Structure formats: structure tokens, C-alpha cells
């Protein structure tokens, strides 16, 4: 559940099934219960912090429909910064889906690719590869919304 730094152990986790097929090396089964507990605690913590930020914006008089936007932006900034500093990987090693499923995971995958491919240039690297991992989320989200939107417009 970790996207960044192909040359570190983190990436190995993502492709462990593929890797074991390739090398014949049997990886131990993941500690399913322990991982689920950490995902719950970290995911819950991220959302609890999000709720505090959301309530801050609500208390500043922002309407409910809009208060979510700056909240999301703050978490994207925090995840991007932690990715840049190289800290996000260490958190994600423990938190797993707890930081990958919230918008922090989206921001991490975009930033990690943007930084990783910087060496291939700003155009061919950073800008081209930025959405290499986050792209499917946008594509399938938009396709879903398009189909549902058309159906709702016809009905």
C-alpha cells in the first residue's frame, strides 16, 4: 500500500505477489489482523484530525458545503510535504491503508511520482509521470460520474 521510492523496501510491499511469482521466494502471509488494527487506528486518527480542521472552518462561519474543500487541501499539502521530506513512507509502513485510503494516499502517490521522475526532467518526468499511479482513480471516477450523470439527466 506504499507507492514511493521504487528502490526502497516500500515498493516491494506493493508488488510482493508479483515478486514472489518471479523469484519463487515465498513471502510470509501478511499479519492480517495486526494490519487491520493499524489501518483502523491510523485511518481513524487521520479522519479525527480532519474533523478538527473541518470544525475549525465551520466555526469560522464557512458554510457546510464549502468547509470540506480547505480541509482536503490542508491534508493534501501535509501529505505532499511529508512525502517530500521522506517521512510519509515510514508512516505508511505502519499505517498501511490508514493513510493510503484517505486523500493523503492520493497526494502521496502524485508527489512521490513527481519527485521520483524529476531526474527525467520537468516535462518528460515530473509532469508526465505525476498521475502514473493516481490516474486510475480519476479515470474510473470520471467514467462512473459520466455514466451516472447521463442516466440521471435522461430519467
Amino acid at each position: 500500500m506504499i507507492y514511493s521510492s521504487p528502490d526502497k523496501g516500500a515498493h516491494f510491499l506493493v508488488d510482493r505477489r508479483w515478486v514472489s511469482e518471479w523469484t519463487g521466494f515465498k513471502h510470509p502471509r501478511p499479519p492480517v489482523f495486526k494490519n487491520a488494527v493499524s489501518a483502523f487506528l491510523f485511518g481513524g486518527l487521520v479522519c479525527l484530525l480532519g474533523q478538527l480542521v473541518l470544525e475549525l472552518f465551520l466555526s469560522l462561519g464557512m458554510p457546510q458545503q464549502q468547509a470540506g474543500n480547505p480541509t482536503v487541501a490542508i491534508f493534501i499539502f501535509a501529505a505532499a510535504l511529508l512525502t517530500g521530506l521522506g517521512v510519509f513512507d515510514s508512516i505508511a509502513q505502519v499505517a498501511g491503508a490508514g493513510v493510503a485510503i484517505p486523500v493523503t494516499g492520493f497526494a502521496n502517490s502524485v508527489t512521490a511520482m513527481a519527485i521520483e521522475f524529476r531526474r527525467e526532467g520537468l516535462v518528460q518526468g515530473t509532469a508526465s509521470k505525476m498521475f502514473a499511479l493516481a490516474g486510475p482513480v480519476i479515470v474510473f471516477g470520471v467514467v462512473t460520474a459520466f455514466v451516472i450523470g447521463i442516466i440521471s439527466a435522461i430519467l
Partner: protein
Amino acid sequence: MGNIFTAFLVGGLICVLGQLLFDLTPLTPGHILSAFTVGGGVLGAFGVYDGLIEFAGAGALLPISSFGNALVKGAMSEAARTGILGVLTGMFELTSTGITAAIIFGFFMALIFKPRG
């Protein structure tokens, strides 16, 4: 719009579901995150996701399923207002923040930080 307890509980449970899919199925993170987005969109079409946001606040707003919900709501509400072309014009109306912030912060982090290794 939720409180810190419901946000913790619902946000935590959504992440547990993602973790279990990752550990127990051959799906990759790309598959799982896409599935959550599509799932959020389908729940959004029936207005269920809005109820979840009302109950759990950030617990439903921060998970990526919220992105699918916002895309569907943008497309549907603009289509209801201006007709079928609204599906195209309204698509990113509500999700602009997330995508713009990810591009801007990702880009500037790439200018500031060097790749590791």
C-alpha cells in the same frame, strides 16, 4: 456534520476495508483505490454518501470514496440545472480543490526535494 468520534469510527472502518482487500485479495492499490472511488460515486448517486458525510464528517470526506461522490454530485446537479451538457461542465465543479492542490503541491515538492536513492 459529524463529530470526532463518528469521524474516527467511520474513517477507521473504511480504511480497514481497504486494508483487508489489500491483504486478502490479489488486487493492487490502484485497483482498490479505483474501486473505492467508483463505490463512493454509486453511493453518491443514491444520496447515501451525503448521509454518511452528515453522520461522520471528515470520516467520510477524507477517504478517496468522497472523490467519486463529489464527481457524481457535480455531474448530476449541473445536468439537472442546465441539461445533459451539464455532465461535462459540472464534472469537476466540486472536486477541483483536490486535483488542483495535488498538482500544485506535487509540482512544487518536486522542485524543492531531490529524489532519494
